[in-house]
């Protein structure tokens, strides 16, 4: 068995324009694409359909070859040893969750509209998804309010998620993950929200990609921290010299 430190790089970045499923049937593929288009809809900006979230999800569910991109984004890591066992089990569970979940979507669609989900208009599709999710359609987030919450676990994995929260998470990932995974085509998702992300993962490894311009350029430590003037033990800097100037 090889250590995670020695996993080989295999394959190439996923082609977002592929229409060949590795896991889904043709009908499942079309249904996932239609659901994705309701989770992040197309408006004056592209949505999850254009960003190819369906390709992202299909590759993820196809086995354990597309789990971790190599650091530089040139391909994918060949998972080995105990991690291969656990990821196979994880993906196998998710495959079942998707297969069963997609059947439910069509069942609800057939029983309500006597048509498969992919044949419905947007409004009817949303009505089906409201039934599948068991909750009202999320409303807009408004300014001018305070909305308390309680503490929650912030690191989002998909272990144990039922179909609806799983596909919502995966569509969001397919919209915003690095394009190596097959979604976020041409950084489409990032452009929608104004995230100036890296051109590719390699650029994050060597200093090419920088966010230095998102820091405050015009500042003076003595003004930001008035107490500095009241002490004489240490020198008072004006600015931080170095990499961010």
């Amino acid at each position, binding site marked *: 068995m090889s*250590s995670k430190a020695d996993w080989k790089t295999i394959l190439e970045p996923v082609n977002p324009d592929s229409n060949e499923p590795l896991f889904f049937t043709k009908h499942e593929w079309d249904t996932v694409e239609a659901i994705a288009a309701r989770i992040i809809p197309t408006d004056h900006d592209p949505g999850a359909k254009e960003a190819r979230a369906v390709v992202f999800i299909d590759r993820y569910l196809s086995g354990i070859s597309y789990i971790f991109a190599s650091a530089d984004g040139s391909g994918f890591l060949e998972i080995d040893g105990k991690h291969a066992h656990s990821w196979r089990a994880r993906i196998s569970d998710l495959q079942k969750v998707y297969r069963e979940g997609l059947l439910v979507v069509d069942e609800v669609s057939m029983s309500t509209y006597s048509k498969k989900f992919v044949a419905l208009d947007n409004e009817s599709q949303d009505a089906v998804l409201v039934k599948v999710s068991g909750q009202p359609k999320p409303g807009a987030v408004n300014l001018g309010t305070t909305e308390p919450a309680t503490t929650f676990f912030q690191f989002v994995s998909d272990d144990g998620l039922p179909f609806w929260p799983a596909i919502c998470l995966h569509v969001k990932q397919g919209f915003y993950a*690095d394009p190596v995974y097959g979604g976020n085509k041409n950084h489409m998702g990032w452009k*929608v929200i104004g995230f100036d992300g890296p051109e590719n993962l390699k650029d994050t490894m060597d200093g090419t990609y920088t966010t230095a311009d998102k820091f405050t350029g015009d500042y003076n430590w003595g003004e930001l921290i008035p107490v500095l003037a009241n002490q004489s033990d240490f020198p008072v800097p004006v600015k931080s010299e170095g990499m961010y100037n």
Partner: protein
Amino acid sequence: MTPKIKPAPVDVVIVGLGANGGTAAKVLSEAGLKVVGLERGPWLKNDKHYSGDELKFVNRNYMWPDSKLTPRTVRRSETEVAEPYPFSMTPQLVGGGTNHWAGWVPRPRESDFMLRSLHGDIDGASLVDWPFRYDHLEPYLTKVEWEFGVSGIAGADKTEPFRSKPYPSMPLPPTRWGKKFYDACNKMGINAFPIPHASVTNGHKGRNPFNRTSFWNQYGDPSGARSNTATTFIPEAIATGNFELRSEAFVREVVVGKDGKATGVIYVDEDGAEIQQDAKVVILTLGAIESARLMLMSKSSKFPEGIANSSGLVGKNATFHEYLFAIGFFDKDIDDPVYGWAGNYISGGTMDFYETDESRGYIGGSITAASQTCHPINMVFPGRPLWGQALKDSDRTFFSHAMKIGLILHDLPQESNRVDLDPNVKDYMGLPVARITHKAHANDVAMGKWQVDKNVEILEMAGARKTIPVYLDQMTGNTCHQHGTARMGFDPAKSVLNEWCQSHDVENLFVLDGSGFPTATGVNPTLTMMANAWRCSDYIADYYLKGREMRLEQPK
């Protein structure tokens, strides 16, 4: 059964090579001792394995423990069956939590070492003083700041106790949201300053801090900016020629000899072979959850309840520091972007709410700091719509118009809050996993409420037009901060370790992580832990292994 493979005995074997194991490895190997370090995870290389891949590092657990392989379980009371839950899942690899951490490294305060003297008995809590004081630790805090690399501005925190030296590096410039925090604090008379950061912005000790990507909290850093023991102390230990690192080595037992001393440890290597490594001194630095678990698993006729556990206190009095916060949103149509996703996670904080003010309805206090709202997939946004036009609209509107102010909850120790061995759930090795039993104290809930409300006030002063306060309900273990499971003290009946983190029961067993912390402190604990690991490693090299002993007196 004794394993057949027995490499040559060494002076010291260290189990777990994170912040504290890395510190011990450096100090002891530089003192000329022969040291072997065993790490259950891999040895990833920052320049080869790390990049800004949000999906891989934040969602798919590339660097985090796989909860299918090494689960943990949690329950709130004795009568419940614990459920699997990824509670405080610190990365398990060479460098440990210093691989992924944001790297807040504030100094502790004098009050942190004497909570019981200050407050007496608090109902339901097991407050005790530490067996030493801030002054004992100060020289070591300075050593860690300079050797490991910490950036900050000396004199900027008016509440900081004595420091003997400034910092070796300037902090990063303020982010846009950091600037909002400073401006609001100055309007409110709050002393804001750059939270000391385990990173350098200069060429200190030959480092090249080129990473300006903002992929920081939970990501590995491919550059030399972040202070990570895997790129600092551990290579320095290897360079002495006295330190051997063995990764993918899972220690399952500390072995006790007939004389009651530890003889060494048994570990399982990557191919499943069992190996016994003997040593004159055994050091545990697995983190307070896994160190306690290993001690409890190391049962023998002399220690049927686990090694070094004659007090019955191993695993008890566990504290975990929940991270609480409030989010503030600005108006995209009116306000300039604050770029909540940019910066190396923290930028500006305060210690003004740290010391007890009983008018607030609780004792103690916490560090407060402005921080990132993170990247697109995992934007920190409680109430983010799950799907539909509302999701797209709110992401488009708030992604660059959000900021966060958080705090590290200084939770009180309670004897019933503890780590023990789960009777049902096993890890991939077939060994019982750590079970957490934890219920928040009323003081914890009250502190969280007051401090989160204060964060909302600061956000409103900063111009936020919507706020989302996140209060404490129960601990979710959302930090990697773990303490108290083998508390230090002078009385062997009331503590597991002495003032050098040396077992009262087993004189050559030392536990040099947060396990020894009698109380949690309200600051991020790693600087205090590393300084303490250094202090105790000095004792091992200068006293214990020279056959000498020194005892501290009970501080007044």
